[in-house]
């Protein structure tokens, strides 16, 4: 049986090989820094060059009603629309609302789960960006509470 360490060692080798060959995927993509630094929901869309989204039942967002701690809030976004180019995740009242954007790939379900920080209770948005530039959202309010001793 392979130990975990052996697997990891080998991963390192693989990484080195890929790096050496310049084969690492995603290298061509220019990180949209402006969008991630935008201070409001609207500004994030401006920075991305996208119109403000409209609500759609074909975009889904799963997040807890109440987060015991804002440092880690699990969120799953999904869409049943066809022609989705990318999926955005935003937390409306965060200092920088844009959390993540996933480029949709036909080999993978349009369903991504990650965890975001939330500074305060507010709406969370999953947004589907279509190939034609249209944008659709699903929204959910998440309450952020205080947990333990508060110190």
């Amino acid at each position, binding site marked *: 049986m392979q130990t975990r360490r052996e697997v990891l060692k080998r991963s390192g080798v693989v990484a080195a090989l890929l790096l050496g060959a310049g084969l690492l995927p995603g290298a061509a993509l220019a990180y949209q820094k402006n969008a991630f630094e935008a201070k409001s929901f609207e500004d994030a869309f401006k920075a991305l060059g996208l119109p403000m989204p409209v609500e759609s039942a074909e975009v889904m967002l799963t997040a807890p009603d*109440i987060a015991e701690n804002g440092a880690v809030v699990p969120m799953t976004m999904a869409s049943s629309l066809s022609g989705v180019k990318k999926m955005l995740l935003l937390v409306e009242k965060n200092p920088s609302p844009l959390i993540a954007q996933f480029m949709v790939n036909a080999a993978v379900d349009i369903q991504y789960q990650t965890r975001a920080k939330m500074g305060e209770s507010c709406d969370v948005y999953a947004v589907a960006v279509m190939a034609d530039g249209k944008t659709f959202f699903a929204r959910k309010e998440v*309450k952020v*509470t*205080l947990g333990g*001793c*508060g*110190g």
Partner: protein
Amino acid sequence: MKKITTTVICICALGGMVLPAMSQSEPADAALQNTLNASFRAEGQAGMDRLLQDDANRLCSQADASGKALSDEDAERIRQSSFKAIAWPTDGQFFGDYKLGEKLAQDGRGKTWSDKPGSENGGNCYNCHQISKTEIAYGTLGPSLYNYGKLRGISDVNSVTAKPIIDYTWGKLWNPRAYNACSSMPRFGHNSLLTQAQLKHLMSLLLDPQSPVNQ
């Protein structure tokens, strides 16, 4: 009723020996003290003096550890000495601003070794009590204080009928052991955790008919 009878029997059986022995302040078990002294170190504002117990803490700890309630005599003695030491508002004014009271109730900071020395302490209230209905993150170690004033019929804090409740509430915040010898609640006034001005804000939070607590 039952409790009193039992105690009476105890006193009869053990004669006068129990009382003087228990009312003396003696150090807790030496081995325990050695372990405490060797296991902790002073850090920030939390010095080694924090490990010392006063008479009330020593008796209550012993009662907790033994699983037996404090004797009625010890309990009464703690209540009386605690009550005597309550400082009533120097200006005779019991109330402040309930909005500031709510802020204090939310604030759990103060007095730990990681807290900045000299910074204002919070009241820690929501850690243990339900207070305003809108705050859902409340603890349950203490009773709910929602509608505290309303349930006690306070519609005017200046009314004669309100006076005993006002006094009790101030006393309870100052030193809960004046009413319950081994209360788990911190002695906010007695141990200088909150200032008189801060206690007044909490009084308003609990008793002011306009406070969200009484809506």
